[in-house]
Each structure stands twice: as structure tokens, then as C-alpha cells.
């Protein structure tokens, strides 16, 4: 075909001449307005802008609404939707034998802060070279709204008990573990998240991004007349127990460095987002922890790049492996020769 239809606008290509389309995935089946979908769209744009070859990415996830999202981005990449909380170990095994892929993991707060917290901790400890996004909504979305371990004390439900247990702050945990890249962001802060994600993709080591990502369906506040709880209570009138409200995605929110803003969520609750100061030194773990503690005291969520250490050896450095990936080794590099077996046996025979 020699004739191509005239385009009103030329398709924009990235540095490896790929259109944005090369980075998209299938349609999402999440609730309309779910924060997780916003994160997916940032993953698409960040990967495209970074010029990563889309098929050289490995999309990893656990189980949860968040962990379903790899189907919705990077359709040219292989992925593995593993088991609940155990994506880090699968990624560890894959990365050990194929170090040439960009491992991009997505998880939920149930996945990462409860059932899988041990695996998260040990992947950080090994400094596994991967990007690890926690799509943190304070609830178990997929199992319909139980509190997660990141929910704040006093997260209130009019009916039923308020959450009384202190939250696990994954960023503070990671910094204490020596994680080499620790950031927090908000699903609605696409610009900030995009910048952090691009930096994380370029980082050599474990990059944790804890992204506050509101669940529009199982928020914690039953008082809200827009909440799921309200809908449930009124299901007699509505005759629909399974009614999922349609939400427009959250507007984009960017908070200037060193400032904070109050953000009203779908259920009417307010979170206060603060962007860490421009002069915060991300190599200073103590300053990062202080910022996290102070923000928690003030009921803020401090966002931005909190901690960064580019020089730590990664898992591969400690395994004594070749530069080339093990999966690329030919058969004769994997199976020693018959003479080698004879030599072993001769030694047993005492010859």
C-alpha cells in the first residue's frame, strides 16, 4: 500500500521511535475512578518517555485489584500475576536468571503490608534490582473493603469499629531496611508520580514507590452519602446490593515542593498531601524518617523522593554471577563434560 491516509497530526514517537500505543494494554475492569487506573496510565507514559523497549519489561504482580493492573499496560511485555503477596520471590527467581529485563512490580497494601510483608522485606534486603509500586488504598479492595495494615488509627466507620491498630508505614520500613530508593506519591499527582517512576526505572537496585491510590468503592467512611456503605444501607430502596457508583477520575493534583494541600476524596474525606522540601537531602535517612514521622503527627502524607542510595551492590553483585544472563548460556555451559563426571567419580573411588 503506497497511500496512507493523511493524518491531521503526526504520531509522536519516543527516543526509540515507538508511539505511546506500544506501551498501552487491555481495557481496565476496575471500578471507574479507581486510583489504580491512574497509576497504570502513569506507568504507560513513564515507560514511553523513558524509551524502555516495551518487550524488555517484565510486569510482576501479586493478587488484588492493584495486582490485576498489569493487564492494562505494556501489552508487549510478558507478565506474571503470581499469588497473593508473593510477587517478590517470583521476581527474585526470574531476575536471578535473566538480569536483562526491567522488572516492574505492582502490588497492593494488603499484598505488601500483610501477607507479603516478609517477601517485601527480603527483596529489599537483597537489593533486588526492580521497581516496586504499592498501590496503597488502606483497604483490601478485591475482598470488599476490609482494613489493611496501612490504614490509619481512627479510620472511622460509623458502624463497626474504627481501626485501632497503628499503620505500617511502608516507606519508613523500607528506609530502616536500607532500601536504596524510597518515594511516596499520590495517584492523582501524575506529574510527580511520572517523574518518580522514571527515576525508579533508571535506578540500579530496589526502588519502592508507595502510591496513595484511593479506592472509590470501599472507602472507610460510612457516613459519606457517596460511600459504598451508604449505598449498602440504602439497598432496600435501590434494590441493588452490588451497585458500584460511577466516579470520574480524580482531578490532577500537584503540590509544590515544601507545601501541602488538602485533597477531598470521593467519599468526602480529606487527605492532606505535602511535597517534601526542595532542600531535603535524599541521602539522609534520618531526615527522611523525621519527615515521615512529622507528617504522620500532623496527619499529612509527605510525598516525593524520600531516600536514595545509588551505590549499594544489588543482588546480582552478591551472587557471583556472570554479566550475561544465565538463561542465555548454551547447553555446554550448563552441563559439565563426561570427563568432569569421570573425575568426580575417580575421586570417590580414591584413585
Amino acid at each position, binding site marked *: 500500500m503506497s497511500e496512507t491516509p493523511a493524518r491531521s497530526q503526526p504520531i509522536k514517537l519516543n527516543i526509540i521511535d515507538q508511539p505511546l500505543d506500544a506501551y498501552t494494554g487491555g481495557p481496565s475492569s476496575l471500578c471507574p475512578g479507581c486510583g489504580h487506573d491512574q497509576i497504570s496510565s502513569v506507568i504507560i507514559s513513564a515507560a514511553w518517555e523513558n524509551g524502555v523497549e516495551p518487550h524488555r519489561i517484565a510486569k510482576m504482580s501479586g493478587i488484588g485489584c492493584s495486582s490485576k493492573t498489569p493487564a492494562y499496560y505494556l*501489552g508487549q511485555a510478558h507478565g*506474571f500475576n503470581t499469588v497473593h503477596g508473593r510477587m517478590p*520471590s517470583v521476581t527474585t527467581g526470574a531476575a536471578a*536468571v*535473566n538480569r536483562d529485563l526491567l522488572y516492574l512490580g505492582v502490588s497492593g497494601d494488603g499484598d505488601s503490608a500483610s501477607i507479603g510483608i516478609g*517477601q517485601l522485606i527480603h527483596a529489599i534486603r537483597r537489593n533486588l534490582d526492580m521497581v516496586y509500586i504499592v498501590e496503597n488504598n488502606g483497604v483490601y479492595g478485591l475482598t470488599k473493603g476490609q482494613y489493611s495494615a496501612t490504614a490509619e488509627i481512627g479510620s472511622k466507620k460509623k458502624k463497626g469499629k474504627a481501626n485501632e491498630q497503628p499503620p505500617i508505614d511502608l516507606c519508613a520500613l523500607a528506609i530502616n531496611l536500607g532500601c536504596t530508593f524510597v518515594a511516596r506519591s499520590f495517584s492523582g499527582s501524575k506529574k510527580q508520580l511520572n517523574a518518580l517512576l522514571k527515576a525508579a526505572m533508571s535506578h540500579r537496585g530496589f526502588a519502592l514507590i508507595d502510591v496513595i491510590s484511593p479506592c472509590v468503592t470501599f472507602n472507610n467512611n460510612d457516613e459519606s452519602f457517596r460511600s459504598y456503605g451508604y449505598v449498602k444501607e440504602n439497598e432496600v430502596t435501590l434494590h441493588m446490593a452490588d451497585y458500584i457508583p460511577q466516579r470520574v477520575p480524580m482531578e490532577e493534583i500537584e503540590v509544590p515542593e515544601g507545601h501541602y494541600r488538602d485533597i477531598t476524596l470521593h467519599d468526602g474525606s480529606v487527605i492532606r498531601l505535602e511535597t517534601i522540601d526542595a532542600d531535603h537531602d535524599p541521602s539522609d535517612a534520618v531526615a527522611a524518617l523525621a519527615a515521615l514521622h512529622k507528617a504522620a503527627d500532623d496527619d499529612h502524607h509527605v510525598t516525593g523522593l524520600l531516600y536514595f542510595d545509588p551505590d549499594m551492590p544489588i543482588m546480582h553483585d552478591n*551472587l557471583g554471577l556472570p554479566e550475561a544472563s544465565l538463561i542465555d548460556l548454551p547447553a555446554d555451559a*550448563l552441563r559439565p563434560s563426561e570427563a568432569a563426571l569421570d573425575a568426580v567419580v575417580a575421586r*570417590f573411588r*580414591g584413585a
Partner: protein
Amino acid sequence: MTTIVNDFTLNIATANGTGSQSANLILLQSLFNMGIEVSGKNLFPSNISGLPTWYIVRVSDAGYQAPGDRTHIQVLMNPDTWAEDLADLQPGSVVIWNTDAKMVMDRVDVVSYPVPMTTMARTLNPKLARMVANVIYVGVIAEMLGIEDDAILAAIAGQFKGKASAIDLNTQAYRLGRTFANEELTKADPYAVEARGNPGGRFFIEGNEAAALGAIFGGVQMLAWYPITPSSSLAEGVINYIPKLRTNEHGEATCAVIQAEDELAAAGMVVGAGWAGARGMTATSGPGISLMQEFIGLAYFAEIPSVFWDVNRVGPSTGLPTRTQQSDLQMLYEGSHGDTQHIVLIPGTVEECFEFGWRAFDVSERFQTPVFGLSDLDLGMNRWTCEGFTYPDVPMDRGKVIRDRDVFEAMEDFGRYRDVDGDGIPYRTLPGSGMAPILSRGTGHDPSGKYSEKSHVYLDLMQRLRRKIDGARPHLPAPILREEEECDVGIVYFGSMENSIQEIDDIIESGGRKVSQCRVRSLPLHPEVEDFCARHKTVIVLEINRDGQLWGIMRRELPNHLVDRVHSVAYSDGMPPRASVYAERIIATIEEVEG
């Protein structure tokens, strides 16, 4: 008194952590060096120091390797078990006892050899006296039984390879014991050993080391493990062989080793490596397999090659962690929730540990499914006579992996889970290839790999998986058959029972009955197992567990007309199998069946 040559059981009672293991291995190896058929079993506690340990040496020209029914020669070192060990002895037994233990030896119906072992050891090395005392009994035994001096010296040299001071100390202690026995003790027992020529090419090796070596020659690319008795030495075997056998010209390893945070993670790493296109394995025991169940199901359903070695110990729960059993078979065969079925390779000898060590990867990649190696503590952690290892006779089988874009493009309508060849085995492409990328998952999926909850899609998938594993049967290790002409009774057994079967067979035959044998070496059952059952009127399924797990599997899988002829003899008391215990039960069962 007629001399009894090369036919007795020797039992050495010590405490864990006293260094008796190397003395016992010297004794075992010296007998082996004389070309004598000998086997050793370590009955050790789950403890680092202080609890009782027994080492059982069976010397048998008939080649019997089970512990035997009674002890003929008892070495007493441990005050804690002294009275019990002594009480268990039959009249006429021999007792070699450490007088420094300050215990009473009041049996008058046994042959008594008192030896001040610790005092003598103290003259050599006061600090190490407790340990050195063990080598003293080796010297006493050597003298009383007539073990050749050269055989002992070679065993000491082998045990302490090149460590001159250790060789020196142990040699002195051995000589001290031997001289004492020669000068102070008068031989009053009938037991003796006689050389049987050169052991030839044979040598001693533990099953775990053999399996590790097999994995090394099978091209293992990733080992993830979490320590647990009795499997640790399998993983450590792989680790120990990597520097010599699996490094490149720059000294870099061609196999990654990761000590995982737990068995869940170890299994996840194996699945991750398999998904990426590599040969990943783990080694564990029952408790570890219990933790791995979820991943085993994922590997089955998402069709990820992965190799799991289970070195069986006594369950349930923590059970008797340092004792042997065959009780994980069913858990492996049907591991994880939902309808599953897994391939299990079951070695019965150290040669097979090596062979299945490499073959497991071929089978796993060929059938794109988890494959288990099932060994047990007895086979894995004790030393067995080995004839040698056969180098893999086939190139590595990497299965249906499409690495080449031309090949990929020539395929019409590629689908990760499409049954193109009618054997239930689909083709796969690897992450990073850009060819037909899918999101691998443990959720329902259609032939192209897309999420689906449709009934017919699920049904087709489950039927195909069944077809795939069923299709593996003839390709798996066939049973080893030893058939008698009059095919009345056949015994089906598996794994380390191999080491007792000859003696069991001889006991049964001494009662005037001949039985055939069929050693199962894989699940799902090879078609020849059914043929064997069809040829025998009565089939006994013999296993070291309570419930008859293989029997249960056979009853379910054999055609109806054969089910009634299959009977279970299952027994496990935590001890390594003693031939007479099983022989009696077999005879009783046959008599019951025949009415």
C-alpha cells in the same frame, strides 16, 4: 564355638555432638575397603549436642542393608541410654563398654569387653578426650573382629583428607585401642570379618550428594532453598560442587544460589526462574512442601517448569525430624488445592538419585509442570554403596520453547495454552522475547492465555492438563521388575525400601513362598505397573507409612477388575525398616487373603 563371618549387626550408642560420627564412618569405610558388604545407619536426634545417637552397622555377605532384627555387638558410650541398650540385648551378645562412663554392666549372659576409653584418650589429648575415646572403640572393634590395619589407615586418611594432625591423632587413638584389646582382652565371641577382595569401582556416597551432583549435571541454573533436615545436604551438595563444576572461565557461577527467607519464597523463586526460562530447583522436606503448596498449584496451572526435591522425614507436623518415612507421596502427587496431579520421580538407589537429579529438569521442561524428586532420610543422609554414575545419555530436553522469531512467525494462531500437537503440551515463549507476550496467571485462562471464567474454557483446560500428565506416564522411569515364574504374589514398593527388599524376599522365601517384585519409580504410574498387577493374583503394596499412600493411589488408578487384588502393608514406627517386621506383615496379609 563356630566363627560367624561377615554376618552381624553392630550398634554404637553415643551422645550427639561427641564427635562419634567420624569414628563410625572410619569403621564403616574400613569394612568397605576390605570388600565386605556393609551398610551404616545413623539414628540421630533433632538436637546439636547431648541427646542419644545410635549408629548401626550391618555386615552381611548376603548384601542385606536393613538394620537387622537384633544387635550382636553393642558399644556402650552413653550413660543416658546405657541401661535400656543393655536390657535389649539377647544372651550371647557382645558388649564393648566404656568403663569411664561409671555405669554398671551387670549382664552375665553376654560377652563383656570393658575398656577405659576416656582414660586412654586423655593420655593422648586431655582436651579432646571425649572425642578421641570414640576412635579407641574403633581400635577395639578392629582388633576383636580382625579388621585389617591397612583398611583402617586408609579410612582414617580418607576421613581427614590431608589434615595431617587429625590423621595423626586418630591413628594414635586407633592404635591405642587396638593394642589394648590385643593385650588386655581375650576373644570370647564368635564374630569376625574376612576380606572379600577389592571393592572394585564401588564407593560410598549419600543419596543427597548423588542427587546434588545429578542436578549439577542437569544444568540447574537457580537453586533456592531454606535449611531443613534431612534435605539441607542436598542443597549444600549443589553449592559445594558449583565452584569446581559450574563456573565459567572467569570463575563466575553458572548457577545462582539463593538462601530464601522461607520455603514459600524458595518455591516462588523456583517458579520465577522457570517462568523466565531457566532450570530452577529447591530441596526441602515435608514441612517445606506444606508451605510450598500454593506455588505448586500455580506452577501446575500456569504450566511453569520447576523442580522440587522432598527428602521425606517422619511427619505429621515437625514429627520425628531425624527419622525416615515414606509419607509425603500423596501430598506430592496431589499437591495444592483444586484438582491437580504432579509428576514424582522416586529414586531407590544412589545411582538413581544422580540420574533423577538431572532427569527431573528434562521431564519438567518437557511437560511444563512441577516435578518432584522424592527421596527420604534413609536414602538421602546415609552412605550407600554406589557402582558409579552414568553420564546423561540424552542431551538436555528444553521442551517446547520457541526462541526463534522465524519459527514463531511460521506458527499460525499461536496461543500459549493451545494444544497444537495433541499431546496436551503447549508451546511457550519467554519473557523478554516480545513474542506473544501474555500475563501468566493462576486464574482461569483461555488457550491464548487471556483471563476467562467461561465453563467450556475451564473444562477444556482442566481436561488438557489431565491429558498432558497422563501422557507423561510411558516417558517416566519404568518400574524395576524382578519376577518369579509362578506369579502368585507380587510386591509393589518404592524408594529406599529397595535396601530392605532382598532380605524381606529371602525371609518370605525361607517360608516356602516365592514373590515377585515391582519397584515403582515414578508417578503417575507407568503402564507396566498395571501389567504387573494383572500378572499377579495377589499384589502387596509395601510402604513405610501408616496409611498405605501408594496403595491408595493404585486403588484409584487401576482398572476396577484389578483393585480387589491389591492389598496394603504399611508400617512405620520411625525406625529404618527392619526386614522381618515387614516380612511378617506380608506373610500375614497373604495368609489372610488366601483364607
